[in-house]
Structure formats: C-alpha cells, structure tokens
C-alpha cells in the first residue's frame, strides 16, 4: 500500500492505495462517490470519465498511485450545494437523459470542453463526447444540451427546447 494525497471535488484526502488500484475503484469504493460508472473496465465506454486537473480522463484506466497531488472533479462535484450546473440543467431541459448510466461521463467531458473552449463548434462538441458511448439516445439530445450551454456562453439565448 502507498499513501497518496488527492483533492476530490475540493476536499483533500489522504488515502492508502494498492499499486494496482484504479482511480475509479478508489473514488467509488473508498470515497463512496458512485456517480462514475464501470461500464467496461477497459477504457472503451467513457462511463468512468472524471476530470483531473482540467482534463477529462478514463478513471478505470488510471492508476490511483499516479494521481498523487492531483485535483479531481467527479459528477458529485459539479453541483456541490444542490444547485445544478448549467450542463446538468440543460441535460434535463433537453431530455438528454435516458438510462442515465453514461450521463455523468458525458457531462464531465462536456464540462472539460466548455471550461477550455467556451464557444465550441458542433463538430468540437461531437468530438468531445465521442469517447462517451451512449446506447439509448442516439446522442442528438446530448448534443443539443451541450450546444445550448455553449450558445449561452456566446450570448445566444436558447431556452427549453423540446421537439
């Protein structure tokens, strides 16, 4: 076991982890932050996506010992005081949620995108979530949700849009 320091959603943790512990298992099992999901355990589905130092990463493929001193944001950190992040609100408004298993992952990919690029093109939006598989939605309403927030960043007001 090795001790690492980790900041997760603004809180500092000192954790004892095994050399082969993955970040996903650590945040789910040791921190009880279960919003990140294990959909494949091989880095192929994106359900385990979290943000590390501003970048979206696959936590199922990331060794916890490599995260010493890093800052992590999980889906639970997106709405810390019960308020919804604009992306979460847009996900609800645009009916972009079905089974919900992939939702935390693509929301974090989208947050990382918009934090670095507040005015993405539609192609940039699609590329940002290309690593987040969704079997339910066909991605259209997900793209609509992200684009609506990006549009608001550009001063374009997009309201609740239900077709």
């Amino acid at each position: 076991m090795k001790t690492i320091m980790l900041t997760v959603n603004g809180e500092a943790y000192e954790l004892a982890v095994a050399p082969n512990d993955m970040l996903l298992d650590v945040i789910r099992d040791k921190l009880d932050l279960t919003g990140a999901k294990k959909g494949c355990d091989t880095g192929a589905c994106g359900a385990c996506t979290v943000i590390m130092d501003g970048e979206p990463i696959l936590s199922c493929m990331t060794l916890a010992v490599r995260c010493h001193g890093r800052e992590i944001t999980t889906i639970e950190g997106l709405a810390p005081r019960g308020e919804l992040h604009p992306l979460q609100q847009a996900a609800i408004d645009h009916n972009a949620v079905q089974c919900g298993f992939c939702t935390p992952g693509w929301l974090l990919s989208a947050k990382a995108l918009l934090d670095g690029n507040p005015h993405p093109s539609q192609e940039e939006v699609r590329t940002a979530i290309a690593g987040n598989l969704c079997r339910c939605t066909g991605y259209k309403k997900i793209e609509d949700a992200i684009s609506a927030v990006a549009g608001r960043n550009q001063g374009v007001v997009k309201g609740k849009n239900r077709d």
Partner: protein
Amino acid sequence: MANTDLDSVEQYDAIGTSPDRSDAKSKATGRAVFIEDMHFRGMLYGKVLRSKFAHARILSIDTARAEKMPGVRGVVTGADIPVLHGEALKDDCFLARDKVRYRGEGVAAVAAVDEETAEEALSLIDVCYEELPAVFDPEEAIKPEAPLIHEQLGAYRHAPGIEPISGTNICNYFHLEKGDVDKGFAEADLIIEDKFTTGMQQHCTLETHCGICLIDDDNRLTLWATNDSPYRTRKEIADALKIPQINVRVICAPYIGGNFGGKGGLKAEAAAIALAWKIRNKPIRVLFTREEEFTSAIVRHPSVIYLKTGVKKDGAITARAVRMYFATGAYAEKGPTITRFGGVSGAGPYNIPNVKIEASCVYTNRQLSGAMRGYSGPQAAWAYESHMDNVACKLGIDPLEFRLRHVYTDGDTHASGQEIYSEGLKECLEKIGERMEWGKKSLGRNRGKGVACMERAVKTPFGSAAFVKVNEDGTVDLLSSTTEVGQGADTVLCQIVAEELGVPFDWVKKATPDTSTTPYDTSTTSSRSTFHMGNAAKAAAADAKGQILKLAAELLKTNADDLAIKGGNVYLKDNGGSSLSIAQVLGKHFGHSATVLGRGFYYPHLEVPVEYFSTHMIFWLLGAHGVEVEVNRQTGEVKILKVYAAMDVGKALHPSNCTAQLEGGVSMGLGFALYENFIFRGGDFLNPSLLDYKIPTALEMPEIEPIIVECAHEEGPYGAKGIGETTNVSLPPALANAIYDAVGVRIHELPITPEKILYALKQVSEKKTQQRADADPATVGNPFGGKK
C-alpha cells in the same frame, strides 16, 4: 376501430406535454442508484468459470483446490443445482451439467470475500473435457448428420404453441398459411426469389448484467437484479427450484442502465442463484464483465431468410413464401417466441392474398440468442424490405409507390388471419416521402434514397396491474412492476396517473418494482408498457378518483357526478370557485390517518382463443425509415446524409420521449446495418470488447428527422400504442435500398461493410464489361434488369 377523434375532443393537462423526466435530475447529478452502487453487509462476490469449448462432454470437475483457497466461501457446480429453467422452453441449466454447449457457458462458480479472490480461485478448478463436434450455422444444424446439441429436447417442458422437434436441433417450428400459395404462384407473371442473412448484434447496455441473491435456510430467496421483468423472473425461478412463488422475492435495482430486451430471464442472476442455493444466508453478487456480456449474456439471433414473391406485370402481388431460420445458440432462451413473432411478420405489412411462412428456431454451439430491440423484427424487415425493393425494381415500379399500393390498411386481413385496425403505417410512409421530396429532388452522383417500413407484434395477451396510493397530502404513489430501463416508463405512467386523477405531474412518484409490494406485470418488453401498464395505471387512478369524489360529495352534500378534480383540488363542475384539496377531503373524513387505494388491472381480450403468444395482436407496432446516402465507389464507404424516422405511436403521451426513442433507434439500427458483428474463427470469438465491437459514437450519427404519427387506438390509454421496441427495425433495409439507388448494388448480408460494397461494385463492373463484350446494350449497367 381507430379512434381518431379522441385527441381532438379532450383537453389534457399532463398528456401530450413533455414534462422533465421524473428520473432526469437524479441521473444528471450521479445520485441515481444502479445495482453496482448497492452493497449489503457480509456480501460475497461471485465469479464464473466458463467453458473454452463450443461443445464438449464434462468428464470431471475438481474444485478441491479452489475451495481451500483463503477468502473463498464456496464453489458450486451444475451438480449442486441439477434443475432446468427457461421461459417458453425449459432447457437451460444454472451451470453446465454433463456437457457444455457453447464457448462461454458457466461450468462452475466461486463465491469469495472479494472479486479478485474469486477470480483467482477459478484458476484452481480443474475441469476435464472431451471435445465433441460442434455446429455453428443454422442451416448446417438442421441437417440430419449435424451433431445433436440437446439429446433430451423431446423431454423438456415447454409452453403451449411451442413445437420442438425431438431428435433434431430445431427447438421450435412455426408455420402459417393464408390462401393458397401454389395457386398464387401459378397465377404470377414473374417470380422473384431472394436470400438474406443477418449477423449477431449485442445490446451493449452501458451497465452490465448483475444479480445479488440471498437464500435463507427456509428456501426463501431474495434477488436484487438488473432485471426487466420481476414477475416473469420470479416465475422462472420458482418453477425451476420447485418452491412457492411467495418464497421468491425479486427486487429491481432502482434504475437499470439500459435493457433493449437483454436483461430478461436469468443471466448473471443464474450464477448468483446457483451460489446462493449452496451458500445460504449470505447475499452473493455476480456482476458480469464487459467480456461476459459478449460471451455469456445474449445476442440478437443471426438469421437466414428465403423469400419468394409472385407478381403480375401490373404490380399485383399474387403470393409470397417465406422460409426463416433463427440461430438461437446453445439454449432456447426466448428463441421459440422470437421465431413465432418473426414468422407471424415474415411476409411484411402487406396485403398479399396467398402467404406461406415457415420459421425454425435452431440450436447452434454459439452464445445464446434472445430478446433484443425488435425481437425478430429487424431480421424479418431486413429481408422483406430489401426484397420489396428488388421486386419493385424488377417490375420497374417506384419502390415507395409499390409499398403504398400494397401496404395493408384497416379492414384488410393480416397473414395471421386477423383483421387490421388502427393502421398508421401508410401515413408514416407518406410523410417520409413528403419530407424526402421523393421522386422530386435528386441528390446527385453516387447518392441515393431508400425507404423501408415494418410491422411488429406486441406480445398478446398478457396482463398488467397497478395500485395507486393517495397520501394524506394528496401526493400519489404509483405501485407498478414496470421497470425504468431508460425508456421513460416511470415518467409516462406518472403522467397517466396525474391526468386521470387530476393532480399535478410532480405529485406522482412510481415505486421501484418489488414482487413483495408492487403488483403483477408480465414484463417490461415488446413496447407493451405504455399500453398495458398505462391502462392499468389509468384504471387504478380512476378507481382512486372515484373514491375521493364519493368522499367529497358527502362533504359538499352533492353528487359525485357533479364533481371533478384538477390540480389536486376537488371542485363543483358548475362552479369552479368552490373547491377542496384532496388533503382536505381526506382530512375532514379521517383526521390524520387517511389514505385512498386505487387498483387497476388490464388484460387484452381478443375474439380468438387464448394462446401463449397469440398470432392476433391487441395492436401492431408500425413504422418506417427513409435514408439518404452517399457511397464512395473507391473505398466502399457509406456516408449517411440524413435519416427520416417515423412511427405510429397512437398518441404521443410524452412527445419528447417519442423523438428520443426515434433517435436512439436510429443509432442502434445504424450499428446493426453498418458495422456491428461478432467475428468468429471456428469456435473462437475474436472481438468480445467495446474496443473491437464498435457501436455508434456521436461522430457516426447523421442528421435525424423524427416523425410522430398518431393513429389513435380505441383501447389504448388516451389512444396510445407503443414505440421504443421498433425504432431501429426498418432502418437497415432503408439504408440498403438507398445504397442500391446510389450505386446499383444490392447487399444481401448484414452488416453492410465497405468490403461487401466494393465486392458488389466489382461484380457489377465485371458484368458490365462482359455485357459490353456480348454487345447487349439493353441491360448495361443494371445487375437486375431494372431502373439503374
């Protein structure tokens, strides 16, 4: 029977609006609880040892070394639970006994203090096999010399209407005739024959299968599961273990991470039950890995379908004969009923006077095939809709016009003998034609348009029940065993209760299915929930409303008939101003100790004898797709320019959820059409991962235009039918038809890979060269002698 004036008369508060899904917030915040988030004190973790052979006799299993490993709490083999389970045909074991029938079949299972220990212990189990000849292709498997996969087929218990053929690999044979096909073919000017095949597709739900099972010393079993149908599962378990249904409690996880038909029956549950049967009083969890999803859950049935159609020169269809083979893998799973439904719809949604359909469900030594979105609809539609274009082409008739001429309409007789009613299919095709500017707008070189339509049966006749509990403050619990698998059932059922009872939508909450509390429902499958459970929930709400109005009438000294409820308030119809809240009505009658309970049960009654999976349906799922493509002649790649997706939903109770289903169906249909397939080399399966088995990402998705058609059904809640099951079904043939329109090649085998297109283009070009050499200009450039 179509009830077209339903929606024009009524003004609804909750119906036809698209409120926020009741589960959206908890899912968007990551708070929604899925089964992998559930833990119980003392829970053990199970892992399954799987066969490496497609077909082999088990000579011995030695578990001694595994049992002694520290942390291991028990090892179980098929000998510990020597019983069979299944739905329509009881042929499946909890763990293999005597022999294994596919690569990936469970042979033994270990329960340990953690998953790593359980996994390690598997390597300490010694199994001796004697390999047997295997058969993988359904047409090989029906030959007399094929290795027999189930020697005991004739002895298995099965549901009525299922016809296993003892001494063969055919576990159900379905046959249907209408008119006289021989006479029909004799009358034809032209007979066109085709063969089509489909490959394996996996559901790829983002959440894998999981079961957590606890059995106590009194044989009381509790199963927490990612299961789509708790009552169906309870019955299957109780039947297999020969224990009363009351001793089996199936509790669904609060949310299920995708289903598409894949989470019915016993998958991960089987191993969890086997372990718990031996290791008592401990909850034991078996959670499938992604690889197990591919090797040991279920897939869509690969199929081989032969079609033969007789036509007159003027385009009249005189007869159609269809022969279908569905490869069900090593165990029947839902294959027998899938074959039945595939057979019923084998000739397509057309008015054809003489029809003969034969459908066989065939065992092979592959992983199990079972229910998957569309059941057998996608295979059947791939064949009959590709064939329809081929026939139209041979006749020189426009394919959309040909369909519109033959598509059945109210009053026509289906191949099953049932009279068609509430048919919105023609409208789906017409709307797609309008939007695509069919016959008007040309897309240019190497571009083309295609259409296809489909019918799919809804499983009939099966019942659904619901309870409505009105609380002291007027809020409402809906108790229903319909599972929320992402389709939006919780939301639409709450809308129905809110509408019927007259309370705001967000006052209603649906309970998590649990066979000890939520009442009977046959299954969350077949796009039956909105119609069947919707009717049950509506009846339960109406029952509760009647009781509230009666109580209010006493308080207001009037007749219940003069009262109504809106926004949670009871008011006099003539005088909207004077009102009492539901809470006041209950409080004034009962003080602080009050409730009203409503109950509802819906069962479709048809004018035919009750059959297990009737061939007459309470409604048909009807829809169509239009596709515009561009084909790259150099690479064989297909670029999809736009998809038009239409479904007749009866009445769109939640329009946004309808378009969500239409869009999601396009994604699953595109995967099936273009790239999803299992790659085998002999018995070996080469791509059991999401890295090597590609499903569509956001980048692959084309522009989609969803089209909702509403041909109300008089027995549906507010006229509604269903949608989710079949929004993928007619997309692959529409795409193939568009490819034909673009470059003149007809692909007969799914998926439509670039290699197949290039090969077909090469054949056309070689044929052209040959034809030029033969100096026959009449057919140059046309592989079929039609319009291209």
